[in-house]
């Protein structure tokens, strides 16, 4: 199972993933034309922050079974068997938003799409960059991320890396190799200061 894995501690809130996502789903797939298109392409990934300025890039997890698929009354949501991605047949979407109510991550939103001739606002959730994947590229958000907060790969591999890293830290005193660098001191110092600022 391939997925975009999130390493929250690496997210710096730059929102580059949001921009890359919006460009990828625009008609022209280009920054300069995307900002002028009539039907605006909005990001399908959301970098939100808490009161202490910590950030998290939230996107569709392409669950299986997917609650959104299970509740969709028109069958507009379906699964791409090859990649496992949950996709939307825009023409079948009736804007009932039941999918959004069922989504455990709150990442479904509605907007106009250039794929339809009408101005109806339909479910424009993350499509796992299915087009890019078929072209042999990785999802735009993961490609755009310059800190490794979003990485695309086999879920088991990515989880294994984290697990080995955790184990290495646990037994660090025995000189085990740590594959993932810890958050550098200067970055932790900054985060601690901003936490104080937020708490004043």
């Amino acid at each position, binding site marked *: 199972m391939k997925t975009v894995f999130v390493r929250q501690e690496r*997210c*710096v809130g*730059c*929102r580059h993933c949001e921009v890359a996502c919006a460009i990828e789903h625009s008609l022209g797939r280009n920054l300069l034309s995307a900002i002028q298109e009539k039907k605006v392409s909005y990001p399908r990934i959301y970098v939100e922050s808490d009161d202490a300025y910590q950030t998290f890039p939230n996107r569709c997890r392409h669950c299986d079974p997917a609650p959104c698929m299970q509740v969709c009354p028109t069958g507009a949501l379906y699964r791409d068997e090859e990649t496992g991605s949950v996709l939307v047949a825009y023409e079948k979407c009736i804007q009932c938003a039941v999918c959004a109510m069922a989504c455990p991550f709150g990442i479904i939103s509605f907007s106009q799409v250039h794929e339809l001739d009408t101005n109806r606002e339909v479910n424009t959730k993350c499509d796992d960059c299915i087009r890019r994947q078929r072209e042999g590229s990785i999802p735009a958000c993961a490609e755009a991320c310059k*800190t490794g907060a979003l990485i695309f790969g086999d879920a088991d591999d990515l989880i294994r890396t984290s697990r080995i890293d955790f184990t290495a830290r646990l037994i660090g005193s025995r000189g085990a190799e740590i594959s993932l660098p810890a958050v*550098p*001191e200067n970055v932790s*110092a900054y985060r601690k200061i901003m936490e104080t600022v937020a708490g*004043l």
Partner: protein
Amino acid sequence: MCDPKTMRMEAEKRSLDRTDQEMNLVTIQDGIETAWDRLSSQQPQCGFGQLGVCCNNCAMGPCRIDPFGEKAKRGVCGADVDTIVARNLLDDLCVGASAHSDHGREVVEVMRETARGQAEGYRITDGKKLQRLAAEYGIPVSGRSNEAIAEDLANGMLEEYGCIKNHLQLSDRAPEPTRAIWEKTGIVPRGIDREIVEAMHRIHMGVDADYVNILLHAMRTALGDGWGGSMIATECSDILFGTPKPLSSEVNLGTLSTDKVNVVLHGHNPLLSEMIVAAAEDPGMKQYAEKKGAKGINLVGMCCTGNELLMRSGVPIAGNVLDQELAIATGAVEAMIVDYQCIYPSIPATAACYHTRVITTSRKAKIPGAEYMEFHPKTALATAKEIIKRAIDAYPDRDPNRVRIPGKPMKLMAGFSEEAICSALGGTYKPLIDAIVAGSIRGAVGVVGCNNPKIRHDYGHVTLAQELIKRNILVVETGCAAIACGKAGLLLPEAADQAGEGLKGVCNLLGIPPVLHMGSCVDNSRILVMAAKIANELGVGIGDLPIGGAAPEWYSQKAISIGTYFVASGVYTVLGIPPKIFGSQNVLTLLADGVKGITNSSFAVEPDPVKAADLLEAEIERKRTALKI
């Protein structure tokens, strides 16, 4: 947010001062957008930018370095994180130094035009200061008119900007040991504009890549501001409008009047606003206001224009930088007259919710949606009258049902120029030095800088000042920090009751507050001069004195320049908001530690004002021990 209790809690969370809380509540209830709303809609803010690791200088970029060290380690050009962070800091510092120094240049130019009889309404007010400065510049004074001296002095000062003499005259005011450090390190400021231009050159791709070298030049550029541009702004403003002397006035949003035409003077430069003060005294203006149904004209200041007017003319001050929108939300402001710096570009949009007219006056600072009345020294008084007339014309449009003036003003004492402090001490710093040596006063800290919606409005300034005076540390203030403490009542002689026994005794003896208002942000130069004189009296460098600096709520690049010239002059400085340098451990280590070996001072970052006071106290005690006192 529509529950009344939640709205009140939010309003109280935003500001410390009660009148500010009241107006915050109004803006929340009425949906008037403020900086707090915009900060929230900007979340999350880009971490590359916050850490200073984003370089947007050239067209090979923009580039950003992975702060976690896994992905990109260099920009396209090959610059590493230390180079990028240091270059960005220098870039920011140059903006700040330019703001102060260009403001200074305008004041000198008006002094020159005044000397030539080409500036309407201006005159040489402090002839003694003029003569003292002329002596520093080697300009003959005997038998010459003030005007002749002023023209020579103005020319001498203008030469400091692009100077070819490789040395700033006013930097000679620094004590010899301090200057020796600058000489040894190669950071003697050579010319105000020159250092800034050289900095811009160094920032270009393929010039300076050594972060230490870049940061040393940052110090040099900042010194050109503190001991150059800012000092010139202060001195020439004193010559033209008078050197401040202690006086009483009022502060907070309650200074706005329910039945007079309210004119808010906002920005930094006193050149036009002093003329507006003069024009408002014209009996014809008052009559015109009465004709329009008002009981008169109420001028109030804001930010550093406000500080300039408060210090010299006792004009009440409505608030600091975060008050600009709150003032308009009272519904009682007929006109907000702005010159430059720290004017929110959204101010005309805020004003459009009311009858308020926003009038810009500087060719350098136009704002879409505002009315523009260009200021020229030749016609300054006439322009000032026309501006007041426009404000009066807006009065009939005021909607009395929307006027909400929150409470009564707080009284304050201001006007503590370096000269005024020295004279309050009896004409010499000896009594202050004796008190410090005896330990009744442990030392002094300059609490300066802005407001930033990331920190509760005024909380950092007020809490830090309270903590310091409790520990018998005298506080001197400028800028928004001084206004914050004014609102909190700390600029009153009675506030000495909140001070430790030693400081309280000295304040009561002299009848002064424990927190002294020294002026606007260019007037941080007054703090430098005071430190220099005390150091000279003791025969030591500024870096040896038991003093410190703090900018608890800073936001502006000007604060970076001020902090850096404080540190480069030997003053340990604590910042309440982290500068955008945390992406580079090397830059952090140099500024927080390495620089100590050069100037015997450094930077620290501590948002919690109580902990900041701990740091400052420890530094003061360290220096006292070194001085064996």
